[in-house]
């Protein structure tokens, strides 16, 4: 029995780059937002042996 092999040729795709990659601006701008801590958040893991500072200088 004769075996027939089919050879498929893949078409080569040529990529054309119009300008050097170094010229492309890749800087990223992120917007950072804070989180307001509640009194419970502040007191979490806070030992009661410490007392808050007094800021009354009047």
């Amino acid at each position, binding site marked *: 029995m004769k075996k027939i092999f089919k050879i498929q040729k893949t078409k080569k795709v040529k990529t054309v780059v119009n300008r050097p990659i170094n010229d492309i601006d890749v*800087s*990223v*701008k*992120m*917007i*950072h*937002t*804070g*989180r*307001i*801590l*509640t*009194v419970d*958040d*502040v*007191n979490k*893991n*806070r*030992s009661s042996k*410490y007392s*808050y*500072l007094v*800021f009354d*200088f009047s």
Partner: protein
Amino acid sequence: MVAYEFIDNGSRVDSDGVKIDVFAFHATLVNQRYIVEVLHMEHDIHVVQFFLKNHRLSGNRFNMLLNAHNKTHVFYVLNTIVNIVKTIFKRNNQASFGFMGAPIRKESSRKYNSKNINPDGTIKNTKRFSSYSLYVKRYFPPTLFTHIDYEDTSCYLLKNNKNVNLTKKVSDNYLNEVISAKYN
């Protein structure tokens, strides 16, 4: 609160026009001198930064970690900074305070810490940020200061509640402005 004694070395204005109050203290436990700079930013925000006097000319002066094993000394340094903050508050009772937990060298390396480095160059949750934020929660009353946590950039703001103009939106926008000016 046990701390080192500090001296007020006056003020200067940097090349960007920012007024900086300069303080200094001698850490007698380790026999080293420190410089503390308080930057007067917009909206009465005061940014506190400190470094060893020996490192004052180094570009990495905020990133070096020294004597961290000596916990008494570390607490003395932080207590001294708090005393300086109280001095600033005496001069301006609308003052808010901010800090950035500067990364140590390993934290700013993409090789070791790529997962915490943001695309814009800021660094998440640094060691200093974790320590300092725990420390300020211990001493700064939430009734007087709103604690705003910027974990993504390792920044922290103690917003003075007397300063009604400094809203969360204003502080967010200002932080983003400062970051884009610094990193871009």
